């Protein structure tokens, strides 16, 4: 380590009046040294992103720094003018954002947008700018740099776009790199590549990296130092070894306790139970009609898929984006019409049923979606939304209300929530309400489509526990769709691994983890972050110190 690059001292950022707290960040002190990766960890609303934006002088206008210093290479960022900030940004300090899909301007080519960094900070001639840009594209391992150079953002995938943003950040060898949840929106194999790129950067360029994340496995993968934040305050900081293996603060312990373990210890026997759902050779093919000299094509979104689900069983469907897992679920529920195949529930074929009878068939199979914010109607009370399902199926309202009261208790909320509106609940609470709503019509099968992906880890853990409890109590069967193997490991009995529209592997979760058969499954498992870290047994540690 050759010295401190960034030193934040007693930083306090005020929130506009009327919020649930007065400071977004309070009295925060952190240092980042050369060649050091410092991870700032916390759940949503902890102030970790605000810290990174304050360092870049990119805070939204509504937020004001009320005290503290941010010393970068010897000068206080907070005392500089906007023009001085522009000189530093992209040059000495650079930032990578969470959402690669929207981080690039749709109107300009990727090459143009990378070159703009050189254009803004140097007087390099055009030819040299282009040569440097092509070299950067090679460095971030983009295939065919000249083609990518002339491409527009919408022609690239999310992972590729994130690499473009990284290329921009690296263009002028900044001494500080700030990455705000850089891999959260990406698939696990892409995440692994980008994390290894960070490690390489630390080694080859000696830059200090401040990485903001909510994922302890990512921390374990790359961090030298860890800062844990809760509600705008640093509750614990130390070396990665200290914080990961011997956490002191109760909140840190709670977060680490919520980290999904990689394997299940309690294998359940389900093979002898009766089948509730059988899917036979289900396929979905999209036809793209001919246009402007291009011949018509057929795209197989789902190749013949067959599996069955037994009573009380939880079957995980795991795959990365574009693997066909969403298509499978939608075809199964007839939200889209499958091209061929059968979906048997109770001896009836959903795939062939006439549209008019779908409503009654769907009663047996209910779904909980990914986004807890978008899937409740903001203008109707929770009670109204819960009873709607059963009332549609002819249950008297009073009786449905009685069941709603039971269910909100089961999902551990009070009866009074039935009179409230969705905006009065947090993401985790909303997801519990969505689960209650799905259970209102007493389905046999519950489909959870990335149902915990949008939640913070501690909330995620609670919702998973709740789902398992409800499943066992009501004898439900569950289809659990996720991109996250670690989450699947916590709740599933069996797992199906999908890749490119095809089921490549199926087996008991323990077996798939311990002895993966298909190369893709092996790749997926190898890409999981934090494998070198064995989550500590918290009960064996000395008592927590707040």
């Amino acid at each position: 380590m050759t010295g401190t690059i960034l030193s934040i001292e007693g930083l306090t950022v005020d929130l506009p009046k009327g919020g649930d707290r007065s400071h977004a960040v309070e009295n925060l002190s952190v240092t980042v040294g050369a060649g050091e990766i410092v991870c700032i960890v916390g759940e949503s609303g902890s102030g970790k992103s605000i810290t990174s934006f304050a360092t870049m002088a990119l805070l939204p206008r509504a937020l004001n720094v009320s005290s503290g210093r941010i010393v970068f290479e010897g000068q206080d960022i907070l005392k500089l003018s906007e023009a001085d900030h522009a000189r530093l940004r992209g040059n000495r300090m650079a930032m990578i954002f969470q959402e690669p899909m929207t981080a690039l301007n749709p109107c300009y080519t990727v090459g143009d947008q990378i070159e703009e960094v050189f254009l803004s900070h140097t007087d390099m001639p055009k030819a040299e700018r282009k040569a440097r840009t092509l070299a950067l594209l090679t460095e971030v391992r983009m295939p065919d740099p000249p083609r990518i150079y002339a491409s527009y953002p919408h022609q690239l995938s999310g992972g590729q776009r994130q690499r473009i943003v990284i290329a921009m950040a690296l263009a002028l060898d900044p001494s500080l790199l700030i990455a705000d949840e850089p891999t959260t929106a990406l698939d696990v194999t892409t995440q692994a590549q980008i994390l290894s790129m960070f490690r390489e950067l630390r080694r080859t360029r000696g830059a200090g990296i401040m990485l903001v994340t909510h994922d302890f496995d990512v921390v374990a993968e790359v961090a030298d130092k860890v800062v844990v934040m809760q509600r705008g305050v640093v509750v614990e900081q130390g070396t990665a070894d200290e914080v990961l293996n011997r956490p002191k603060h109760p909140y840190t312990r709670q977060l680490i306790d919520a980290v999904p373990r990689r394997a299940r210890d309690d294998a359940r026997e389900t093979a002898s139970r009766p089948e509730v759902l059988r899917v036979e050779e289900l396929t979905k093919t999209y036809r793209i009609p001919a246009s402007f000299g291009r011949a018509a094509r057929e795209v197989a979104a789902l190749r013949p898929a067959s599996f069955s689900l037994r009573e009380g069983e939880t079957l995980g469907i795991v795959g990365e984006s574009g693997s066909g897992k969403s298509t499978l679920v939608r075809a199964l529920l007839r939200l889209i019409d499958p091209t061929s195949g059968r979906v048997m529930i109770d001896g009836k074929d959903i795939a062939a049923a006439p549209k008019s009878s779908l409503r009654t068939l769907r009663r047996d199979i209910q779904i909980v979606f990914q986004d807890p914010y978008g899937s409740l109607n903001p203008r109707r009370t929770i009670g109204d939304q819960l009873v709607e399902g059963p009332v549609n199926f002819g249950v008297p309202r009073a009786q449905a209300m009685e069941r709603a009261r039971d269910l909100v208790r089961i999902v551990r909320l009070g009866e009074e929530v039935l009179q409230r509106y969705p905006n009065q609940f947090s993401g985790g609470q909303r997801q519990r309400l969505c689960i209650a709503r799905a259970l209102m019509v007493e389905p046999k099968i519950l489909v959870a489509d990335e149902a915990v992906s949008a939640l913070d880890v501690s909330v995620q853990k609670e919702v998973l526990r709740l789902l398992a409890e409800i499943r066992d109590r009501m004898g439900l069967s569950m289809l659990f769709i996720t991109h996250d193997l670690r989450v699947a490991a916590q709740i599933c009995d069996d797992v199906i691994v999908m890749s490119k529209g095809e089921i490549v592997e199926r087996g008991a979760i323990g077996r798939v983890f311990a002895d993966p058969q298909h190369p893709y499954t092996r790749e997926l498992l190898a890409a999981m972050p934090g494998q070198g870290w064995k989550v500590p047994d918290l009960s064996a540690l000395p008592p927590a110190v707040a």
Partner: protein
Amino acid sequence: MAALVALTVSIISFALIYMAGDPAVALAGENATPDVVAQIRAQYGYDRPLPVQYLDWLAHALRGDFGTSPYFRLPVSELIADRLEVTMILGVLGISFALLVGVPMGVLAAMRPNSLIDRAALFIAVVGQAIPSFWFGLILIVLFAVNLGWLPASGADSWKGFVLPTIVLGYYATPAIMRLTRAGMIEVLGSDYIRTARAKGVKPRKILFKHALRNAVIPVVSLAAVQMGFMLGGSIVTESVFALHGAGYLAWQSISRNDLPTMQALILIFSLFYIFFTFLADVLNAWLDPRLRK
């Protein structure tokens, strides 16, 4: 696509003759005997089957021959060619005025929402939308032509004659362009890629003009095309107020005199302009936004 729309429009403008009643009766005038009507019907070919009449009319129209105006006793094409120039100049000036005023005002308003500039721009927009064109035109004439004597009140003899009509016509289109620019800029300035550009250290002015404006102006282009079409056909009021003898004024005359061939030709030409400008807007937008290119 555009060609198909143009063909449909030509059929509709042809059919207009029959929507207004029997054209032969209309031409013959009141108190005409059935013999005279029959003679006119034969003379103008109204006794032939409709598809034949349409194809005949279309074939002539494609060669620029729209027949003779019964009121002006002149070939329609000559009549229109004379007037179209004035209307075209006025339309181009009007839309340029609207864009040159509306877009910068929208950008300024978006840079500081709810500031004094934003409020002032909103005020101008509301006033522009509320004042009828003829009234605004008269005020300008009283002020600049009668009282100050700087500009002529009417006529198209020199460039001076176009100043006031341009302001009247352009001002009417300004508010919508300004509001759309403002809304687009506010949305774009809050987007992730603007944040990326700032994080790269791009200078604020370049962020505004290179990164933000290009994205924000895309819907404005489509709107301007619609308004341009509207100005060409709908400058009747402005042309009347300033006694500019343009195509709008001619349209008004031909409607009031029941001059069918002129009406037909004008409707067809206005519609074709409209289609042309919409097409031009699509081309321009595809150039601005690569996602719209196939």
